[in-house]
């Protein structure tokens, strides 16, 4: 097996005259967690479908696990596990039956599937729910079952489309912990998310998407250093326009988003001094994160 799990080269896809994915290129190395970060409508799910060979690109080349996709997608899929954005578990069946039925789609014998089910249930922390119907499971449990289902063929690569969207924080942390466990065992993961925290915690590298275009790529830390590189002060309350003209000389850059002022300040103390004594202002100083990178790159209400 080569050390490249996924290679996209100049991939373009349109529906009608709407360009969804625009000359996109990236490479995912074996064993890494690669994130596609972008808002809704940035083309993330379409990219996931193209990697699986379920949608053919209009132009460009895709190679997954060493085989061309979609031409030989069936072969590629033997080594892929999928966690889709919307649960598509089989509601008529129990947890155990879902795994059994899905294993058969991979051509596994009943005996072989039954042999791996206990370890999958343990992995998904669903041992006590083995004979519960899917309809009785909570949202987090369904996601974990979907994850267990994706592992039935012992895949090299996991394709996950918004794996924790719609989950409560506890359930989300459990999924993240399970994913890190899989990464430690050498699995490759490509995941789409609009969750900055998820991308920051899990991904070795990520690609920031806007309108199907790759607008930045790198490790979360490198992206933060490159695009922000200093402390962030969020200021709420007060008139954003007035405040920004007051502190502009003391900061690197200011962005206004709604009622909040984001100041990228190499020297936060200077800003505090300027605002000292003003009533009704709340200041929050924090390290920069991917959200800042994203706001910066997609240029929402940005002031120079």
């Amino acid at each position, binding site marked *: 097996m080569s050390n490249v799990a996924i290679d996209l080269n100049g991939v373009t896809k349109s529906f009608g005259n709407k360009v969804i994915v625009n000359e996109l290129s990236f490479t995912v190395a074996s064993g890494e967690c690669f994130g596609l970060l972008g808002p809704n409508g940035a083309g993330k799910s379409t990219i996931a479908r193209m990697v699986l060979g379920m*949608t*053919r690109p209009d132009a460009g080349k895709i190679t997954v696990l060493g085989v061309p996709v979609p031409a030989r997608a069936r072969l590629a899929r033997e080594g892929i*596990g999928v966690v*889709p954005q919307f649960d598509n578990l*089989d509601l008529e069946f129990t947890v155990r039956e879902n795994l059994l039925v899905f294993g058969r789609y991979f051509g596994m014998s009943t005996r072989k599937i039954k042999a791996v089910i206990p370890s999958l249930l343990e992995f998904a922390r669903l041992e006590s729910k083995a004979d519960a119907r899917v309809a009785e499971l909570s949202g987090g449990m369904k996601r974990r079952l979907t994850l267990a289902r994706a592992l039935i063929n012992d895949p090299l690569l996991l394709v996950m489309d918004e794996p924790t969207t719609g989950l409560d924080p506890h359930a989300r942390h459990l999924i993240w912990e399970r994913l890190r466990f899989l990464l430690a065992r050498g699995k490759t993961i490509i995941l789409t998310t609009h969750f900055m925290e998820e991308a920051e915690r899990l991904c070795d590298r990520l690609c920031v998407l806007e309108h199907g275009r790759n607008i930045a790529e790198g490790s979360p830390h490198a992206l933060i250093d490159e695009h922000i590189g200093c402390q962030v002060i969020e200021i709420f309350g007060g008139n954003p326009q007035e405040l920004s003209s007051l502190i502009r000389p003391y900061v690197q850059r200011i962005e206004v988003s709604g009622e909040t002022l984001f100041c990228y300040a190499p020297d936060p103390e200077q800003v505090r001094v300027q605002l000292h004594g003003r009533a009704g202002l709340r200041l929050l100083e924090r390290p920069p994160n991917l959200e800042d990178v994203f706001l910066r790159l997609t240029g929402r209400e940005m002031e120079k």
Partner: protein
Amino acid sequence: MGEDFAAALPANAWNWIAVWRRNYLSWKKIALASMLGNLADPLIYLFGLGTGLGMMVGRVEDASYVAFLAAGMVATSAMTASTFETIYAAYPRMHHQRIWEAILYTQLTLGDIVLGELAWAATKGFLAGTAIAIVAAVVGYAAWPSLLYVLPAIALTGFAFASLAMVVTALAPSYHYFVFYQSLVLTPMLFLSGAVFPVTQLSGPFQQAAHFLPLAHSIDLIRPEMLDRPAGGIALHIGALCLYAVLPFFLSMVLLRRRLMR
């Protein structure tokens, strides 16, 4: 494009079995209710029409009316059961429940899924038709040995109608459209195909049209066997049903690929 279509066809001769087994596992949980539901309708027609109307019309084509009707009901129940399985069960699996989408994550192709669904719907048609045939044999409207020849014809009927219904499934934007297929295609077919009265009662053009209807071919295979008459044109009838099983399969593949894999 052609290459893509080839890749969506069944990958081998056995992948579809996994889909069939999924549906079988699901059906096993409600088998009794499902069988009763499938049986009740044709049996009510058979004995309701057969005895009531039978007294008025007397003998038809040299058989009692109930015996004549029994063969029609065998074919009709196979048609109905396999059609309904495809439009009311396979359709939600494809559409709302996204079960087909989950299957497409595996090494199965769209063709494997469609073939598995057709085989399952044909199985349900086979069960429904066979149950009526057995009832007919029990009450003496058919000779037991004739069932040996009738059963394969029932299975083929199930396949042909599953395949036709798959085209409707591939096209339907929602459940509401299935009623058109039922009332504008299946119900007229019932009356044009000789299920409840002989085709010879129809006027010329309708008789001509009947030659093209799959249900007519199915009845022409089943009825002579059940009434112990010499059958004619067996190869033609089998050939026609095979065409109705195979051609809509490919058409539905084209339509479903466009719907699911754009």
